């Protein structure tokens, strides 16, 4: 009997996983729809939106500059290492510019935001849920989704493209400095490569990706935190899940969007 139940649990495991994933997807989508609807209905939470914009955007700028600069610097080094073999050092600037604007800026920028902002959103909302602060909002006739979730999702969706731009710009500065001061590439050659090969569509495609990443990151983090149960362990689990799920979704959606964008160009 025990062997039978063991095998049946193994056989049922994939179905359970699918059921769990569909359940999570359903509640997350419902949360998204409800938060979007409340975004357009009064009362407008301008103060909360500005506070979240400051937290997600302004307070993340330094992190973007730092990580962006080092990403650009290492990209220049690796680019040079490969191209030097074919005598194509002049292409370093163009290569780094394309990589940063299309992929590295939006993706690594978003992953850094997940680490800093997504984890904080999940932990804060989870802690609010467990200390009855969300119940307190409801008891005061305040819609918690409108007050807590809508401003976070809106702020992240608006802030991410700007943060990705800052990341890419800092990366280009880093790459320029390494290329000209350390690798001995002529400054004019570096910039000519960037001008000749970087198309405005590369930047806009990167920005479109950032908008989607911002929405995904905030939705996953808010969803995990808002429905967190089980005390401090539950909050810890929600925070971890938010970071892991958001990071994976960013990479998967990046691939899907890149595929679509390749087709359209």
């Amino acid at each position: 009997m025990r062997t039978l139940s063991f095998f049946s649990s193994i056989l049922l495991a994939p179905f359970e996983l699918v059921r769990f994933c569909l359940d999570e997807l359903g509640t997350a989508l419902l949360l998204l729809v409800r938060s979007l609807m409340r975004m357009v209905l009064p009362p407008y939470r301008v103060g909360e939106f500005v506070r979240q914009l400051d937290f997600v955007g302004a307070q993340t700028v330094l992190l973007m500059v730092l990580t962006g600069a080092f990403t650009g610097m290492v990209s220049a080094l690796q680019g040079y290492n490969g191209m030097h073999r074919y005598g194509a050092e002049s292409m370093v600037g163009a290569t780094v510019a394309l990589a940063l604007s299309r992929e590295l800026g939006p993706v690594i920028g978003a992953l850094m935001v997940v680490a800093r902002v997504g984890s904080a959103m999940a932990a804060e909302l989870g802690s609010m849920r467990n200390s009855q602060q969300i119940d307190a909002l409801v008891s005061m006739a305040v819609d918690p989704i409108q007050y807590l979730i809508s401003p976070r999702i809106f702020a992240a969706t608006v802030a991410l493209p700007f943060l990705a731009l800052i990341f890419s710009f800092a990366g280009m500065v880093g790459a320029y400095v390494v290329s000209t001061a350390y690798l001995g590439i002529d400054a004019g050659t570096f910039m000519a490569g960037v001008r000749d090969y970087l198309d405005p569509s590369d930047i806009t495609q990167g920005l479109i990706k950032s908008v989607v990443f911002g929405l995904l990151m905030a939705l996953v983090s808010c969803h995990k935190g808002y429905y967190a149960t089980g005390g401090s362990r539950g909050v810890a689990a929600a925070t971890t899940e938010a970071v892991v799920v958001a990071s994976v979704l960013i990479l998967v959606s990046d691939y899907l969007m890149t595929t679509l964008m390749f087709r359209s160009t």
Partner: protein
Amino acid sequence: MSGSPGIPMIRLENVCKHYNGQQVLDGVSFEIRKGSITTIMGRSGGGKSVLIRHMIGLEAPDSGAIYIDGENIVGMGSRELNRIRRRFGVLFQDAALFDSLTVEENVAFPIREHLRLREKQVRAIVHDKLDKVGMGEHLHKFPNELSGGMRKRVGLARALALDPDLVFFDEPTSGLDPITRGVIYDLILDTHREMDTTYVLVSHDIHGVLNVSDWVMMLFKGRIAVQGTPEEIRSSTDPLIQQFTAVSGHGPLSMD
């Protein structure tokens, strides 16, 4: 001991609720009189907080009806429910103050949400409420800088901010030392005297609540087992009450 006399502010009719196969509320029925201080007692984990969550509309029962001032809130839409909730004040178990706001901002929160007042007027109300609970000197502190008793006092000031018709207290004295418990009970009595509001307490501190309540009910196995005035409860020979007052591990309230 059949029911609280007077015009009812709250009326529960056969309210049932189960979680994961366990029947937590099993046909709860009672009335709470307008302007009274009524306490629902019971063991920890016995469904008292669940009951209060149902009365606030945070949870819906599996069956039964919950009337607040004559209106059944079961099945009510969120807009209607919010209209009723504006008449509530709630002091949660750990006060549930907003971590990111100061004491002053916490108490101002419901006022700013629901009343269109000038900032000067908001501050005047907030300072008045905080002075009443003896927290007027801690306006700019954050909740994590306060002791448990201070948090409860700020929670009480926030619950009273909109001069509600009905205030719920979920374990108002749990985790507090006897002196602070006394301070909280005094505040409950003082504020009630001033405002003529209906107060509903859930607590397991029988000796404390008998001194402040007009009516006491005992929740046992998902139902109201005993109810009456504090005098009736004190003189009751019911084994449940006797065990509760004797703080004994032996009796009908044994661990199961």
